[in-house]
């Protein structure tokens, strides 16, 4: 399922003195099967954008096309459940949305809202609890007895249980330890590849954007500043620094190295492996001794 944003504008509290323009002229597409990263400074409008992807917010101008539904400004929208089933959103700090007595019931909440029978929902819970890296015993515990990291995983399982076609992640690893971050991101990437899930990742981690995304949108002050492949966008570290953003450590290393040694590598490397390979090529060419 494709999603398209066309000239989307959103104002919070429109028509009151507290009105606030959050995003404007936002246009980009999320083709089926894409992995799109959205980066930008805090307050640049990332979370506002993703709430348009399943019609939690309705644009105040422009339109959002979600599969065959068109959500445009000023129209009264009904029956949004079908849209919400197809687009699952893992919000920032999703552990705050847990409420059921047991983990199993909490994971089943989403699917059951969309009419999945209880048996099937439970089966999904069993499958997913292992997928997010927890053991099956956790299913019968209260979510409030778990650690923060475990709660996060349960909440993520709760969204995956809806079996959406598009998965939207708002800083899913914020506040986790490095190992947990990697485990969770690897799991998302695995889902993306094996099930062809379109994925939208809002992140502060340039490393994650470089590692997983095949397309990247940079937000700045409520507008799309640039869109492109991570490799192109990260090849301009100074420009990103001007927006208060950084580039992955690997890229920074490469730029420092090129500046100091005067040797230009043939491409911007996004991973340590790529960089090692490029450096060894450079050595073979005789640039390094």
């Amino acid at each position, binding site marked *: 399922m494709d999603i398209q944003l066309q000239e989307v504008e959103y104002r*919070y509290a429109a028509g009151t003195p507290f009105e606030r323009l959050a995003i404007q002229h936002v246009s980009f597409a999320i083709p089926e099967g894409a992995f799109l990263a959205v980066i930008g400074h805090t307050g640049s409008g990332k979370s506002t954008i993703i709430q348009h992807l399943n019609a939690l917010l309705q644009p105040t101008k422009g339109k959002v096309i979600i599969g065959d539904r068109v959500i445009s400004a000023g129209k009264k929208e009904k029956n949004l459940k079908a849209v*919400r089933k197809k687009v*699952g959103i893992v*919000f920032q700090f999703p552990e*705050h949305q847990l409420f059921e007595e047991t983990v199993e019931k909490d994971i089943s*909440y*989403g699917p059951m809202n969309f009419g999945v029978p209880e048996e099937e929902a439970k089966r999904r819970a069993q499958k997913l609890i292992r997928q997010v890296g927890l053991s099956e015993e956790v299913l019968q515990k209260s979510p409030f007895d778990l650690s923060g990291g475990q709660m996060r995983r349960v909440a993520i399982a709760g969204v995956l249980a*809806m079996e959406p076609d598009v998965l939207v992640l708002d800083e899913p690893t914020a506040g986790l330890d490095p190992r947990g971050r990697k485990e969770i991101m690897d799991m998302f990437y695995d889902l993306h590849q094996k099930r062809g899930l379109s994925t939208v990742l809002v992140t502060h981690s340039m490393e994650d954007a470089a590692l997983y995304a095949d397309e990247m949108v940079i937000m700045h002050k409520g507008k799309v500043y640039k869109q492109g492949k991570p490799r192109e966008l990260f090849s301009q570290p100074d420009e990103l620094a001007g927006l208060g953003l950084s580039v992955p450590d690997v890229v920074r290393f490469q730029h420092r190295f090129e500046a100091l040694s005067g040797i230009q590598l043939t491409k911007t490397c996004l991973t340590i492996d790529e960089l090692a390979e490029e450096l060894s090529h450079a050595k073979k060419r005789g640039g390094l001794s």
Partner: protein
Amino acid sequence: MMEKMIFGRYLPLQSAVHQLDPRAKLLFIFGFVIVVFLANNALSYAVLAAFTFVLIYLSKINIRFLFAGLKPVIWLIAFTFLLHIFLTKEGDLLVEVGFLKVYEGGVRQGAFISLRFLLLIFVTSLLTLTTSPISITDGLESLLNPFKKLKLPVHELALMMSISLRFIPTLMDETDKIMKAQMARGADFSSGPIKDRIKAVVPLLIPLFVSAFKRAEELAVAMEARGYRGGEGRTKYRLLHWKWKDTVALSLLFVLAAVLWRLRS
């Protein structure tokens, strides 16, 4: 979703009303609530309404905005109006529909009471819109100070109030966030039979309570860690200054009361 709520929100502007001492405004409201009951005929209600609109004008708050903020209570007002229309049996019979009889007195009563309600809401909204929560609390604490002698825990009450006021917006934001998170999981808060809607609130309330308790605990720890030990011997960072304008504002209320007293029948 919650962003249209104006109740309890402060709108920092520069206006004569904003600059009044919070004590003056609190006493004014207190007096106004009593004075409102003096009006009992069309003329006195007209004066009362005019007075209120002048206040709103002076506060520079957009009147459209005040009306928008009425939405949550409009049903309550409509209900009181209808109740009066159908239950008061005074004056001439105006219309009769089946067993329902509408009398002239009922319409008058209904209109007056609704107007009274409306004006009270406007004026109290003006208080919170033009006074920061901190000032309201300082004002209340200062006004209640004499009651300390009666062992009333004035400082603690003021503190409780300022904390509550401080957390209203936070709780609103939180409500909004959790509602959206559950809606993204297929929850439906706005349609379906009433029984389902009540059930739909559970996934909202539990996370809210959990986070409110967590916040309360964190706040208590943070306050203790910084050596908070109650109001004894505590001085104020912001001091209140009673100015002549405040006296004028309060006198206006007496003038209003006198006028209404003359006009009432």
